């Protein structure tokens, strides 16, 4: 049990608790704050895995952009203080079912693939070094075509959203 393992479980526990609170809490803004905890937990796990570039991206995109956008939208529409009565959607059990299926699927496939594979000690030594360079080399070297395809796809989605949102 190294320090990374202990912190993994601590962060994972906080994330699991916050994730449940996101859907059970009675206030939209509080739910968004618990969502921040979950997403920050993901970033912390990335840091534990020595993937600092991914962690920074997680913070920039999910906390800095998506949660801010959620909060912005909530405040422009229904910035209610205190408890809200019917926040729970009627189809919550469908969502719960999907969540459980996804969890089981991921858990089984990950355990099946990496379950009792010991962490390579020699590899672990090199893993401590940050990997920003490797990530950029991979994106703009090996995977440059998929990367460009995804960015064009996102651009198309963006343009489409603007076209749908504009009235004229």
């Amino acid at each position, binding site marked *: 049990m190294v320090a990374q393992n202990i912190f993994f479980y601590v962060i994972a526990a906080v994330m699991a608790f916050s994730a449940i609170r996101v859907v059970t809490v009675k206030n939209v803004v509080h739910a968004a704050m618990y969502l921040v905890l979950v997403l920050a937990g993901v970033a912390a796990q990335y840091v534990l895995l020595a993937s*600092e570039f991914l962690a*920074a991206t997680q913070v*920039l995109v999910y906390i*800095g*952009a998506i949660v801010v956008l959620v909060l*912005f939208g909530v*405040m422009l529409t229904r910035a209610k203080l*205190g408890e809200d009565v019917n926040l729970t959607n009627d189809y919550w059990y469908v969502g719960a079912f999907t969540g459980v299926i996804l969890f089981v699927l991921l858990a089984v496939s990950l355990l099946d693939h990496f379950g009792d594979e010991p962490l390579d000690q020699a590899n672990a030594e090199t893993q401590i070094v*940050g990997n920003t*360079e490797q990530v950029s080399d991979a994106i703009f070297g090996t995977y440059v075509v998929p990367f460009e395809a995804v960015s064009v796809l996102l651009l198309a989605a963006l343009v489409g959203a603007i076209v749908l949102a504009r009235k004229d």
Partner: protein
Amino acid sequence: MMLGLELAYWQESILRSLGVLAAVLLPAGTFVYVFLFKMVSFMQNRLGPMEAGPYGSMQLLAEVGKALQKEDVVPDAADRTLFKMAPYLVVATVLLTYVVVPFGPDMVFIDNQVFGTGIFYVMAVSSISVIGIILAGWASASKYSLLGALRAAGQLIAYELPLVLSVVGVVIQAGTLDLQRIIVAQATGEIFGWGAIGNPFILTQFIGLLIFMIAMQAELAQTPFDMPVAESEVVGGYHVEYTGLRFLLFFIGEFATAGAFSAIAATLFLGGWWLPGLDLDANYMNVVGPLVLLAKMMVFGGIIFFIRFTYPRLREDQLQRFAWKFLIPLALVNITATGILKVVF
């Protein structure tokens, strides 16, 4: 290893934590005294604080003492937990920002071999403070606070983009995201074969610096971009309901963020802790470096506050148009030009 001292890991960690605190509070205090108290007073033809200490230099401590002894008022209708949490979130953001700023060859808070994301990390964590500001405005249960917070959110989102895009030019030129290596790239650079002053990126990335300074002014909500806290329109914006220590935290957050962004601008464009003629690897740079960086920070701080006390406020639509239709396209052109020139030379 620092200054020839051999320290255990936990001792180094404690020193680093204290170092971050000092790096946040000292420049913030200096900025408040030198610019907010004295420079603006001279610009407005008055003396400013003169009573507390020689030339009013202890005025800041008096202000802190005043804020600390005030009652911590929480409005009745407010969301107590979030109301109390928001200022800490804003200050924590600044503490996180300083983590990757190098102050000398060994005077770093985090080893760049382990954490090489540097400027990208700065951009990521500096976006967290928006959440603190929105929360403060919402949890206060006041119309003025909410309006101020909405303005702040719209403004910070709009100007974060040019801020991020303006540093891409520097990153392309230096070939690294890490701030320490960006400084080395500037110190060892050459201007058409002439390397006496290195190659500070202010020369090649002047447009980037201009965009960075404008976006920084807006991110800090300083005039001419101070609609979120415009006293004649929304009283005081998102922190109108705060008193005592929590107001002080917002105040520290504002000036510490000004310090942090100045430090980053100095690192990216002026060569950070390095000066022409100084040895890049010498041990004395660990003492001289922080002073050099502080001097360069004061240059940028002076510009920020000089503009703040000189120009009137923009209108909300002008501000948004300026960001989206002028700054962002200009930053993109700058990136393209830098990329092309990088390949050509």
